[in-house]
């Protein structure tokens, strides 16, 4: 077999924190004690936490070893569909660490915080321009938090009209966060199926949309990587019955500079700065999920809003119809700084090119792999394509086995078993930051794995063998939870 990216090296074992250390060690330079010890009511004093005492070297080796058990975008290709695992530029990290930004207190008076307020104001403007929407809040801490905020805005809008519907339409291709965010607002999700082309039909929406429905939550492009071509007609139907159109903007990386969301009937949408705008995922956050709305929903956005007056910026709470606060302070500013830096580094032309190349890469993979893997919807895709394990099932090999085998080849697996509408789904999103040679290597690896599936399926069902651990027993973990040590 030709040499692949995946190999094994010396990986060091490392115990749990409390299995090392010794009382009396320290990894912290205790600040100078320049005041006397003050009396204290002893009845309030506790025993102090039972933490291990470690030296600085202990701590550094511990986390350095742990880090080598992880796979990141900097390690290699990470084609997780719907997650947009693009390269995270290093200069953005530098900007977020600047002492004036990283060290600033959220309640600083406005005269002492003009720098960050200006940055936030400008980022709002840039995101409004990119989406074609009218107003933006940067407060939500993540995509799901953005959805919740969007739903709360929708709820407040209907309240202001004096009629609160009880349902909301959620297509079967939606992220699981959609129905659960809607449920927090008391809306009952009404599912709707996509058609044989993988998109929503106008008729299916017309059939179920009524005055007791708050609106629809669409993901566009959807989770099959397809553009919802009927979106304008669908929006018209929804608006006709007094509803609103919510767009999950998780897949915005496909259409920057191409589609104007404000023009296609979207009333409210969220963006994921940690997907489209290159901020790192951090092993599961922190993210940032700004919400963009059209004029008629602006009064309901969360407070505080960043406003500008004669070149001075301030936080304003003077929006009486606002849904209120969704976070203690003003959102994940550290993440916003990175997205702001990204937009300024690319500019208008290269942001559009980013989307074009993301779509080119996905179509390239789709074309090159469609004879190997079963292609669920053979149509031009956007930034991701969805295959399934239909061809391999005859050899008793499933999606999960191929995913695990990819690890041995040196790749993070794609998203698997999602979207739910495709049985055994394999959802590949290469992003624009992968070059042609790396895509070719990935394609070759997948073809080699498909061949192994036919000839020696055990290589797959036993995979992975090269990472530090082999498959883990998730059933026992859930049945007998051991959550603390």
């Amino acid at each position, binding site marked *: 077999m030709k040499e692949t990216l995946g190999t094994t090296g010396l990986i060091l074992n490392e115990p749990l924190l409390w299995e090392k250390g010794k009382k009396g060690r320290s*990894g912290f330079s205790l600040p100078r004690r320049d005041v006397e010890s003050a009396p204290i009511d002893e009845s309030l004093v506790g025993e102090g936490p039972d933490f291990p005492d470690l030296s600085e070297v202990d701590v550094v080796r*511990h986390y350095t070893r742990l880090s080598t058990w992880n796979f990141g975008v900097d390690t290699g290709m990470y084609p997780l569909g719907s997650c947009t695992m693009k390269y995270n530029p290093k200069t953005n990290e530098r900007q977020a660490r600047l002492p004036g930004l990283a060290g600033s207190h959220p309640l600083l008076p406005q005269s002492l915080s003009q720098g960050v307020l200006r940055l936030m104001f400008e980022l709002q403007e840039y995101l409004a321009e990119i989406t074609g929407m009218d107003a933006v809040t940067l407060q939500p801490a993540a995509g799901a938090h953005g959805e919740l905020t969007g739903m709360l805005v929708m709820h407040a809008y209907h309240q202001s009209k004096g009629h609160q519907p009880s349902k909301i339409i959620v297509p079967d291709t939606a992220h699981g966060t959609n129905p659960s965010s809607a449920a927090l607002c008391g809306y009952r999700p009404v599912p709707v199926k996509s058609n044989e082309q993988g998109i929503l039909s106008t008729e299916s929406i017309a059939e179920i949309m009524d005055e007791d429905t708050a609106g629809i939550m669409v993901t566009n492009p959807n989770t099959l990587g397809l553009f919802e071509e009927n979106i304008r007609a669908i929006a018209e139907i929804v608006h006709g019955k007094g509803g609103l159109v919510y767009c999950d903007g998780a897949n915005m990386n496909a259409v920057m500079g191409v589609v104007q969301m404000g023009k296609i009937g979207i009333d409210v949408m969220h963006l994921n700065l940690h997907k489209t705008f290159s901020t790192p995922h951090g092993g*599961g*956050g922190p993210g940032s999920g700004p919400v963009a709305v059209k004029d008629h929903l602006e009064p309901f956005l969360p407070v505080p809003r960043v406003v500008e007056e004669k070149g001075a910026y301030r936080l304003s709470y003077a929006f009486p119809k606002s849904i209120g606060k969704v976070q203690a302070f003003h959102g994940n500013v550290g993440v916003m700084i990175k997205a702001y830096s990204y937009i300024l580094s690319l500019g208008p032309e290269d942001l559009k090119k980013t989307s074009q190349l993301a779509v080119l890469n996905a179509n390239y993979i789709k074309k090159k792999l469609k004879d190997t893997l079963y292609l669920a919807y053979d149509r031009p895709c956007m930034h991701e394509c969805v295959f399934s394990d239909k061809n391999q099932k005859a050899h008793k090999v499933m999606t999960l086995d191929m995913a695990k085998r990819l690890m041995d080849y040196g790749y*993070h697996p794609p998203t698997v078993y999602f979207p739910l509408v495709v049985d055994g789904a394999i959802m590949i999103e290469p992003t624009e930051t992968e070059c042609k040679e790396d895509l070719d290597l990935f394609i070759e690896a997948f073809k080699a794995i498909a061949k192994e599936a036919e000839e020696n399926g055990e290589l797959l069902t036993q995979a992975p063998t090269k990472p530090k651990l082999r498959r883990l027993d998730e059933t026992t973990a859930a049945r007998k939870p051991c959550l603390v040590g």
Partner: protein
Amino acid sequence: MRYLPHTSEDVASMLKVVGKESLDDLFSSIPEDCRVSDRLSLPEPLTEWELNEKLSTLSNAMAVSPDSKVFLGAGSYEHFIPESVSYLLGRSEFVTSYTPYQPELSQGTLQAIYEFQTLTARLLGMEVATASHYDGATALAEALLMAIRVSRKKKVAVSSLIHPYYRRVAQTYLHPAGYEIVELPHLENGRTDLASIAGMNDLAAVAVQSPNFFGCVEDLQAVGNAAHETGGLFICAFTEPLAYGLLKNPGSQEADIVCGEGQSLGIPQSFGGPALGLFSGRMKFVRNMPGRLVGQTTDLEGRRGFVLTLATREQHIRRERATSNICTNNSLCALSAAMYMSSLGGTGLQELARLNYDKSEYLKSALRKAGCTLPFDVPTFNEFVAVFPGGFDTTYQRLLERGIVAGLPLATFYPELKNHYLLCVTETKSKADLDALVREVTS
């Protein structure tokens, strides 16, 4: 552009493979009337070096240590962060990975989060802690919703000495579904007045914060007893977890859910975010808890390993019946906190907490000597309220011009507390800083 690796030859050959004439052709499935008609109106691109200059200018327009002296706490605390923590946190295997859905390639994150859950549970005295939430305010809102789920009651009692912003977030989360929040007033000594809950039997939970927004340590045992007498759960919130390096933890005082903000544990203030929501509870409630959990298990060869677990509570499995819509946590912030807690150790955390207390007591006593009133007489940790003489607001403004922020004016949040200021003193302030502040505010 250095992030876009395609040469024009690459583009040409790839377009040929996919059977398209141009990059624009790739979007032919998008109806014309959905397209952007114009070029995006955004600033022209900056070089790396121009970007550095631009951001440095913005950074320099902010008041931060050491040039400025900011005596603000109120939910965001200035603490020293060891370079080893910042350095380790830059390991890109941690930074550039996704939520650990594929455990074989994510053992680093998973073990670190398991350790984080353990250290958090030990700090708060609880049986189980989640992999983190967005921030203290959303953790509290989720705790209230959880209590409502567990008890099937629709009303919660919340202390007026919980951070005002946390209460607003709780209001936002609870309002649409029609749940009721009863606010508990405060006593003259700076603690929550529990008198009104006696005899209530329709409460899902009673929530207080300790140390509370005034910096005062609540009598948690008494709150716990009162809460349990109503049949509701006792939720203890906090904004300054360092306090539990010194004070008795809430778990040892009957709390059922302990939740709050973990920013103090090695996370830069960053104008308020990203922060770190800590959430912990009793094991019997674990299947009702919101948020991610990491559990220990074994691999095919019997070796110890870690996975995300109890996912059947979560949105991607249970959809609209999930315990929360939360998807990711604030993993990297949780990792900072774990690194910070392990760097300090039990001994270091205790010593640092004591130093915060002692410095704050020093300032209290110096202000008292200089003639200021400290209106609340119960013990505090590293924050407290002082009353400055009438007309102090002009002094306050004058001090701002010199980069001194002499506390938070409380009248913004509690209109009856005119001339009351909430002051915070951590280990980052020297005795000389404190003496200078006393001179400035009393001169």
